[in-house]
């Protein structure tokens, strides 16, 4: 375990637990420093893997032999132990029993936050959770869906063609929130207003470039200049990724990404010098490792898609649900004990996240609402839910980071949690800041979901409005492929 304890004069009676990302259980010093900013002692753990350890590199004792202790440690136990010890040390070191305790993490770190909130009701007074990588059973195989789909139709698009469709989407949907700023801030309205098939026939032109895949972190081959027009197959791939997989009986298997999200790096083919065409790319590292190491228990990081169809993908998701329901899936939906203990959660997710679907967060919160308030009206149940658990969809933000030049990000989200817990300042709108570009430093406010932004006239601030029926239903797709409700374990 690794802790930062501020000098007594800088200590403000707080402890902060932090988590990791990808298959890592900590973010090292960059996570701990988030505590110093708020006068909090802060901690993280290596989960028994050594600093820098990744779950997939340690989880196999040998082929066919999964280390279940490690799965449980990584799943929830190590962070719990680090927190219990860190809280006790904080009380002892500063000789004060008064202590507020918090959690902050994004992506896998977000999943780890939920693993604590769902299990240990009185451990944290508040949690700042971003884009959680929970429902791993679905999340990880879903990384492979673009390549599986492309293999099924025998076609892979160029980055340039996919970016053209994204740009056309932006042009069509930017103004739907009442403000033209280069951001699709109403992906729900965009889904009703814009059909990507309208991009067919539009011409695109891109200079040569060296590709970078933000999911794998690797650089690809140099892509030659691309010129052409968007064709039906380009759009078919784009829509398959955006809508998420449907099984062979046309039942919805899992969610995809929101309109306006740049998914070109998820789905672009690899240019072949020999054939002069784009071929289906290798699946992402994490999308391969989950299948080979966590499901098949084979010490290999290479996944062949030979013979793999959407039905194979469905099988992987079902297998993952059964294997990791109690550990890595982290979608327990009864938060009554946490609520009664007085805990607060601020959960945020970029509207343009192309790694973890924004809808993954939305459908989790929706299932919590249904489980906890089955007899209340929609409005009444939201009011009760928002007393302790609020979700914010951050327009223009990508995975755990800002993306669009004019887009803001909730940089002080832990500060907002602290204000809610210690001073009862309810984050009806979440403070955010533009962190880049010509408007760097500009303050913004993010609406509590399902309320969504709408600008009118010359207003200096947007309203937060309840979407109309069709737009609201867009957020809660029916996933009817698997026998269990994929929204959670109700």
């Amino acid at each position, binding site marked *: 375990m690794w*802790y930062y304890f501020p000098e007594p004069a800088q200590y403000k009676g707080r402890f902060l637990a932090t988590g990791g990302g990808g298959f890592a259980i900590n973010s090292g010093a960059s996570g701990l420093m*988030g505590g*110093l*900013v708020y006068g909090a002692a802060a901690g993280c753990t290596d989960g028994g893997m050594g600093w820098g350890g990744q779950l997939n590199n340690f989880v196999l004792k040998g082929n066919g032999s999964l280390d279940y202790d490690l799965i449980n440690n990584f799943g929830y136990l190590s962070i719990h132990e680090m927190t219990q010890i860190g809280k006790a040390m904080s009380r002892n070191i500063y*000789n004060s029993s008064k202590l507020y305790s918090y959690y902050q993490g994004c992506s896998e770190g977000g999943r780890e936050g939920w693993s604590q909130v769902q299990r240990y009701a009185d451990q944290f007074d508040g949690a700042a959770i971003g884009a959680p990588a929970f429902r791993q059973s679905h999340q990880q195989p879903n990384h492979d869906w673009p390549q599986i789909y492309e293999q099924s139709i025998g076609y892979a698009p160029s980055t340039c063609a996919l970016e053209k469709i994204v740009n056309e989407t932006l042009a069509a949907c930017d103004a739907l929130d009442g403000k033209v700023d280069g951001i699709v801030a109403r992906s729900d309205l965009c889904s009703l207003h814009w059909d990507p098939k309208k991009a067919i026939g539009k011409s695109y032109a891109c200079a040569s470039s060296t590709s970078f895949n933000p999911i794998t972190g690797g650089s690809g081959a140099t892509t030659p200049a691309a010129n052409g027009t968007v064709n039906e197959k380009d759009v078919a791939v784009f829509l398959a990724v955006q809508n998420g997989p449907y099984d062979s009986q046309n039942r919805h298997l899992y969610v995809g990404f929101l309109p306006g999200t740049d998914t070109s790096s998820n789905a672009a083919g690899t240019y072949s010098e020999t054939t002069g065409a784009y071929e289906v790319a290798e699946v992402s590292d994490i999308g391969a490792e989950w299948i080979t190491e966590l499901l098949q228990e084979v010490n290999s990081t290479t996944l062949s898609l030979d013979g793999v169809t959407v039905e194979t993908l469905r099988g992987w998701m079902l297998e993952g649900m059964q294997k990791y329901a109690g550990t890595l899936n982290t979608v327990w939906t009864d938060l009554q004990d946490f609520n009664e203990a007085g805990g607060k959660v601020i959960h945020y997710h970029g509207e343009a996240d192309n790694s973890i679907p924004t809808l993954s967060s939305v459908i989790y919160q929706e299932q919590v609402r249904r489980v906890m308030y089955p007899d209340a009206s929609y409005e009444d149940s939201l009011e009760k839910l928002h007393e302790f658990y609020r979700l914010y969809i951050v327009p223009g933000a990508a995975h755990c980071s800002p993306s669009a030049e004019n887009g803001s990000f909730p940089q002080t989200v832990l500060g907002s949690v602290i204000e809610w817990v210690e001073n009862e300042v309810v984050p009806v709108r979440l403070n955010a800041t533009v962190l880049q570009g010509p408007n760097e430093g500009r303050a913004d406010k993010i609406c509590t979901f399902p309320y969504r932004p709408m600008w009118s006239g010359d207003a200096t601030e947007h309203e937060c409005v309840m979407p109309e029926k069709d737009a609201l239903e867009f957020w809660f797709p029916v996933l009817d492929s698997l026998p269990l409700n994929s929204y959670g374990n109700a």
Partner: protein
Amino acid sequence: MKQPLLIAAGASGTFAASLSNICNVDYITDSLPSGDSAIQGLVYGDVTAQPVYNSSVEAGNNYPASTGNNFCNVTVAYSHAGKNDAVSVGSIES
């Protein structure tokens, strides 16, 4: 049951210790939960404590910038009784 050797709070109730008072292996080791407050079956290993002065935090996506931070950089290793495992025994990459 071991009792931590704690520095007494002043008459005002404020805690007036300096970083060097709290940031040493003996004091940190004494602060580890023991007896009834310890986690069952957990065995502590090596403890390190190193003071860091005037540290700056660059702004990130999840926190604003901060300067002049003084803190104690601590590691604690432990294992679970009978499991022959070890958490946090590697060298720190910071």
